[in-house]
């Protein structure tokens, strides 16, 4: 489909209030045609996060520095951001509107799932911002079940704030959760080799780092945080898109299950040659 036709559909959807559909269409356009000014202009009003709005505005101004409306909108957004961060720095509109060297800033990729974005903020310990994001989402909820889900998240976050729950760094959570399947594999391995790893060295030991890697990937796909994997493998910044996380989760399960499956096959092979001893006399 031509980008003009897509743009027309996107704009139409935005005008009648189908924001999610409009956003998806316009994101498709800018993925294929990153310098489409009109698509970016519409996206400034359709993306949910403040950061994403700023990026969209910056991209418009990179393509067309003379767009006064977007420039004014960007000033307003930056002021909002400054208020949120409670920082007193002066906003240099010209400098912020034009990225260094006039280069087009295609990233970070915009979040396609606002709910995911809110969860990410929560996982980064930004409870207040996450709550605000959930509140915005609740106002835009399309169904009562969606509203209920988001409302539960808000109540839960308020509970966390009231109970003064400590923030645990995502890196610690990932390290901790990496142990789960590895510990199980290690314990089963000891039983498999007769509790003496030196007397019965087995190829199954190679599975231990593989399970560790799988556990790590599973933990990373669950704990939303910035990580080099998102940049290097998926060419994304931030805490990974829904797609990237799903891919990582599937890979994690494959790495975890494979060594366990090999161990089971090894056990089954041993059982086939097993001579059952006679029943002993009980004391």
């Amino acid at each position, binding site marked *: 489909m031509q980008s003009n036709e897509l743009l027309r559909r996107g704009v139409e959807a935005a005008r009648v209030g189908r924001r999610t559909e409009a956003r998806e269409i316009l994101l498709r356009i800018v993925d294929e045609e990153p310098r489409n000014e009109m698509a970016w202009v519409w996206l400034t009003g359709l993306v949910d996060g403040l950061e994403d709005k700023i990026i969209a505005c910056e991209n418009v101004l990179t393509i067309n520095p003379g767009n006064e409306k977007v420039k004014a909108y960007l000033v307003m957004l930056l002021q909002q951001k400054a208020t949120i961060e409670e920082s007193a720095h002066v906003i240099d509109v010209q400098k912020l509107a034009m990225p260094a060297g006039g280069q087009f800033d295609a990233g970070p990729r915009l979040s396609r799932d606002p709910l995911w974005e809110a969860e990410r903020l929560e996982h980064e310990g930004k409870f207040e911002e996450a709550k605000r994001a959930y509140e915005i989402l609740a106002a835009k909820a399309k169904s009562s079940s969606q509203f209920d889900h988001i409302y539960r998240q808000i109540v839960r976050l308020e509970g966390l704030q009231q109970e003064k729950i*400590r923030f645990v760094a995502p890196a610690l959570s990932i390290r901790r959760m990496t142990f*789960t399947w590895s510990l*199980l594999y290690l*314990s*089963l391995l000891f039983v498999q*080799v007769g509790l003496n790893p030196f007397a019965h060295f087995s190829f199954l030991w190679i599975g231990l780092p593989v399970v560790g890697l799988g556990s790590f990937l599973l933990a990373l796909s669950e704990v939303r945080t910035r990580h080099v994997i998102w940049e290097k493998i998926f060419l994304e910044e931030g805490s990974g898109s829904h797609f990237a996380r799903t891919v990582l989760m599937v890979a994690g399960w494959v790495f975890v299950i494979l060594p366990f499956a090999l161990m089971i096959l090894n056990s089954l092979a*041993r059982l086939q040659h097993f001579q059952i*001893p006679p029943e002993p006399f009980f004391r």
Partner: protein
Amino acid sequence: MLPLNDTEPNRYSYFPIVTVLLILVNCFVYLLELTLGRDDFWPFIMKYGVTPTLILGVEGGGALSNVTAMFLHGGLLHLLGNMLALWVFGRRVEDACGPWRFVSFYLFAGTIAHVFYILVQHDSPIPGIGASGAIFGLMGAYMLLYPGGRIRTLVFVSIVPTWPRIRAIWVVLYFFVLQVIPAIRILSGAEDYSVNHWAHLGGFFTAIFILLFLRPEAYARYFSDTAV
């Protein structure tokens, strides 16, 4: 003293899917055991139970038998007692871990329980079966995570049954202490092998690893002086 139910609600999930599935699988396997003839029972238990001499001799099913042994039971009371405890203590531990990490912890606790049995009774030719090692792991984990939780417990005062809500820490400690003396007697060779007390203690000690298996929010709560 017989724990009947955990009276506190779940925090993170609505339905303890893994706990219920484990109970169903255990019951199904028991029904399967009942279909075996008398001559088939011993080979079945030898194949799928944990026998220290076989494990140490790298014979038999090894890791697979270690897992299958957790689903075998020697009688209806054995099964019912274990499943009741699994329901009482497993539900909220699963809630704090999430289903997959709960499975992992359950199997890990059961395996370490068997390792204790193998180490202490290394010359035993008798296969160990039952979910109790893993369940003692859950009991220990429950005590660490919810020491203030209350368990509806059946207690007989003389011959009169009562069912007060007792603090989890006392219920778990009661069952722990019940294991210690027979376990010591096993070491001195004075106790029968019919109940695997060392496996119970082994499972109980794995509870200290539960912090690795918690979901991030439950972990944060644990270190925030508030209920997990």
